[in-house]
């Protein structure tokens, strides 16, 4: 509970990794689906996408890298992967089964 400015925006600025502005969504995937604690999850992601751990929460480095890796950026650019397209690439990069990606493949027979 709490208003969006006082609670959700505030926590994101004070403590959050930044979601897809940075690599917060990627680190969160390793926590959620592999039960990795924060340091292990950050190291795993950094290793898989070829950056240092401090780079993971840097919006400048990650915006460029996310566009290069085609895993989705906040400010859309034409031709850059969006939604499920980006998750196909994330699953491959992180060597991780993503539930909806597996379902998508099954549905369309790939």
């Amino acid at each position, binding site marked *: 509970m709490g208003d969006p400015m006082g609670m959700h925006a505030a*926590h994101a600025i004070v403590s*959050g990794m930044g979601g*897809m502005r940075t690599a917060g969504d990627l680190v969160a995937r390793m926590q959620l689906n592999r039960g990795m604690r*924060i340091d292990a999850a950050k190291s795993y992601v950094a290793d898989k996408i070829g950056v240092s751990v401090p780079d993971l929460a840097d919006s400048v480095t990650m915006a460029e890298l996310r566009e290069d890796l085609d895993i989705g950026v906040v400010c859309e650019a034409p031709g850059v992967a969006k*939604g499920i397209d980006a998750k196909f690439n994330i699953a491959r990069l992180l060597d991780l089964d993503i*539930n909806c990606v597996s379902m998508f493949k099954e549905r369309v027979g790939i």
Partner: protein
Amino acid sequence: MGNIVARMGDGDRVDMTEAEVQQDLEEGSQDAAERAKIPPLTSDEIAYLMELYRRKDRVVGVEDSKACCLSYDNQTSKIERAHIPVSKFQQLALFERCLGADTLELTHIDYSFKQVKHVVIYDKPNMEQAVLSTIAPIFYGAMPNLGLYSVPDGPVANPMDLIPADRIDEARESYAQMVEYAIADMVYVGSQLYEFGGCDGINFDTTAASGDAEFYAALKAAEILHEKYPAMGIEMGMSGEFILGMHAEIEYDGVRLAGLYPHEQVKLCEKAGVTIFGPAINIVTNQSLPWNLARSITFTKACSEASSIPVHANLGMGVGGVPLVLHPPLDALSRASKAHVEICRLDGL
């Protein structure tokens, strides 16, 4: 020694001397330590908190290297609740693309598994579409809310009517029936949203609000879902620091649930297959925030140290050192956020 503008647990501003803040920090930590039989904060940690309260900054933040992942409860009601008429999909997009959310959560406005059961047929295609258009990992979330299974909201005799009449065995039988109904609903909803909706995980929020029987139901549901879908993410957020003994004898894996504190709760969650645990430490409104913050961090630190899975502490309205108000003041929220993450070495909030 100057004065410090602090707050009470209900958010009211209060002038305190440094000596009073120091005393409240020590007493709050001691309260948690004595209740849960865990170590109090060290003198260095008390000094860190003291320094946090001395600072005049309106907003403070964690060191870069300690930034963590955020998860949410009832996320697709947050914007709507501010009287902004946007859809669930639009709320997910706002969180992902405007509010820096590391995770997303699709939910029903009536945020209990029993109520969700009736609208699963609508939320499954909602989830199917949400996973196509979003990138961050996405939960489906609801509360176990065991109370909804007893009269007048459900079919089972209400234990709160039976216990005062000294009908203890019947009350325990009621809890057993409520548990069976709740497990069935949680497993049904979780299975539908994961297997057919395509979500990444299920969030059990405000767990154990009805006490030990509810905690048992959630643990069993998590265990069943983990066995069915080993790759499923399961987050279990709690409702308070102490498991109320409403049944008083119910056990999970040979451990009596009544009276467990967060550092003990997390161990059972690990056994059940939970992948993210959320301790919740309630605010005591008539104590100061320094007292509440030190108390919450003492419980949460012990939990984080005991855990082998990620810990996302609940730092919302009235829990985790955040005052019990709908519009949390930034000075209080940012201090609670920073201090919990840095001292407890949290994986998320």
